[in-house]
């Protein structure tokens, strides 16, 4: 057992292994084929662009969530932080009179700041991330209402541009692709990204090996805040205004996307590509059910079952692999 005498078959492509490791992707493909057969409206350029636009917000939020979950935490505040960032951006433009581009950057900074506070509370204040970010959820949503007085605020043209088109391609899809590349690069190539896996896998072992665990955690939450702010601005750009109740409950979609994508809530596992597929699964299901005229009430039921199923299969798979 311990010696390396088992001949490794590396040349031929291992389909079984590929299927087992990419369950969400296989599910997505099956889903798309089923919808293609069920309704002619699914595979139209317009609908696919719609899916792309809808997935952009969820996926960008979920990329930020991936960092947090890989590092062994959870961030419940991303939806509220998205709303706060967009609202702050609108306020800086409309009330404080900042130029539009500065207001946009200001919005991103607000999100990053909120995330940094989460990280500080978690790493240095020793609050469990669940609690720290639950508090931030409430604070950020409350501040959003305070700033806006409960009313939508018009966004500057620079933010609205994020919701527009470049030629035939919607801007949110371009942002999504850029965000995915950046997140993936960060997680796979950089020291801070690889450290996240170590911290999530075993924080004490990481610390004793000299990794700056606290700083890593703060960075992780700050990144989640930054990505949340970007998602909030994307959403506001599409609607041309910041809504006080925007992105409410989106944190759960983001967590679901990450988990469907194969990450473990125990930390140490997860990929941006998986998260992207997970977000697509959620959005395609919603889109398909809409096309099939299923009410949004039933959609919630279906989404819940899909999450349970996806994670259940994953748990089973790990169990069979480890024994």
């Amino acid at each position: 057992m311990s010696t390396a005498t088992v001949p490794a078959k590396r040349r031929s492509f291992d389909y079984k292994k590929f299927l087992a490791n990419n369950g969400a992707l296989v599910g997505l493909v099956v889903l798309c084929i089923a919808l293609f057969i069920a309704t002619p409206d699914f595979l139209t350029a317009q609908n696919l662009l719609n899916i792309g636009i809808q997935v952009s917000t969820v996926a960008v939020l979920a990329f930020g969530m991936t960092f947090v979950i890989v590092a062994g935490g959870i961030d419940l505040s991303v939806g509220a932080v998205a709303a706060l960032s967009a609202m702050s951006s609108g306020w800086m433009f409309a009330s404080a009179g900042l130029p539009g581009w500065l207001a946009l950057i200001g919005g991103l900074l607000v999100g990053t700041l909120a995330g940094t506070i989460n990280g500080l509370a978690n790493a240095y204040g020793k609050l469990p991330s669940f609690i720290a970010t639950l508090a931030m959820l409430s604070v950020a949503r409350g501040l959003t209402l305070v700033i806006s007085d409960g009313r939508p605020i018009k966004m500057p043209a620079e933010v609205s541009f994020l919701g527009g088109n470049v030629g035939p391609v919607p801007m949110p899809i371009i942002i999504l692709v850029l965000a995915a590349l950046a997140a993936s690069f960060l997680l796979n190539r950089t020291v801070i990204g690889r450290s996240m896996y170590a911290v999530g896998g075993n924080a004490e072992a990481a610390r004793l090996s000299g990794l700056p665990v606290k700083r890593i955690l703060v960075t992780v939450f700050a990144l989640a805040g930054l990505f949340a702010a970007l998602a909030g601005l994307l959403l506001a750009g599409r609607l041309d205004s910041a809504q006080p109740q925007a992105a409410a409950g989106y944190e759960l979609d983001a967590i679901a996307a990450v988990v469907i994508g194969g990450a473990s809530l125990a930390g140490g596992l997860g990929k941006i590509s998986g998260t992207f597929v997970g977000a697509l699964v959620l959005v395609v299901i919603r889109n398909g059910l809409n096309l099939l005229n299923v009410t949004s009430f039933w959609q919630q039921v279906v989404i819940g079952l899909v999450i349970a199923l996806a994670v259940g299969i994953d748990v089973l798979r790990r169990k069979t692999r480890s024994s």
Partner: protein
Amino acid sequence: MSQQPLVTLQNVGKTFGPVTVIKDVTVSVYAGQVQVLLGENGAGKSTLIKMMAGVYQPDAGHIVVDGKTVTLPTTRAAEELGIATIHQELNLVPTMSIAENVMLGRTPTKHGMVDRSALRNRARAALALIGLDVSVDTLVGDLGIAQQQLVEIAKALSINARILILDEPTAALTRHETESLFAVMADLRRRGVGMLFISHHLDEIAEVGDTVTVLRDGEFIAEVPASTPEDELVKLMVGRSIEDQFPRVAGKVGETAEILTVEHLTSTGSFSDISFTVKAGEVLGIAGLVGAGRTELIRAIAGADRYTSGTVAVRGRHLPNGSIQAAIAAGVGHVPEDRKGQGLVLDASVNDNLGYATLSSTAKLGLVDFAGQRSRAGDVAKKLRIRMHTIDQPIGALSGGNQQKAVFGRWIIAASTVLLLDEPTRGVDVGAKVEIYELMNAITAAGGAILMVSSELPEILGMSDRILVMRDGRLAGELSAAEATQDAVMTLAARDVDENHEQR
């Protein structure tokens, strides 16, 4: 033996997929006897006991209890026949009381409510069986490991277990606690309980065992009396003779080359006023009872915990208090006590685990040096003979010895010259132990310095050039390798420690 065994695994075999883990092994447990199961990690001991405990079903052969062939489809079925297992990882709920733990799953009720007095009484009766004198209302989490183990044994006896499987019960115990456990085992033996005992400590075999079944690579090798000399047992177990269990070759100790200097180091509540030096080429052993402050001392030197006062210097330069990064930069490497909990990220690859300490220092512009890391990890894995399928395999799948070699490997890649070892061979089998000792020799021969904490006295005596003994957070004395004996060390370590104090 004319007496009928309580349980026999008769010519059993077990395969997992293509791998044969157990092949045609027979082992019996007799009433009032301690049967020892001996073999290296991976020899099939745990598979064998899992068959006896109803976790696995044998693919070949059969299980005989009281002369009747039985099947044990579940652990519950085994328990009903009186077979109970005391696992290395204890199955107790730390947040519940001793009474609740002992009666877990069988909680007595009255009118649908928990009958607290019956619960306490029955738990008390169970504790009396093993002579454990603590309040049954104590939370299990407040007990030391030794006492938790006794609670687990009491729990097993309270469900009328006649056959106890003890899976490395002494691995986490001090010498003193081990002796208390052996006293309990001797008592159980007199009362006709049959025991199957697994241990990596060869010296315990003669002390507590009756007969020894030796396994190697899943096969039955021999059944010998427990009085068989240790050399002989090792030879049977590894299939070759190991010339020297502790092959210490002292490095050239230069008189002036003090690498690690610790002065008046104090951490309130853990240790106080500790001063010593370690020279280049030297192994300094720290002996003492569990709780004497040895691990706390090592962690403070490594920067893992902050200390209250005193100084730590490497090659004359003071290290800042509580900075692991600074310690690593100064050449300090820390092999922590709990390999799985503190040393390794088990789900991560061997390659990643070897590289954590050098992740930042080898990076360029914040980008990981993947190619360089792979080649460094590959080299060190080859040098340390880490046995694995591929370097991308999760490290959790390797044996204890190979995992431990990887923790060492991390510091070799980091070119550490001061190694702080905390129980460096815990849970490591004999062959890998010797490899780790040889590695220590290589490090000191190259001018490195080693500070080693170990609860295994033979290891301290066999591998140290000098020995410090700690007692209650203070240095109780220093012995040279020449004058150190088990008795000398234990006298220093345990003086003035009365029973009650240590039991707490």
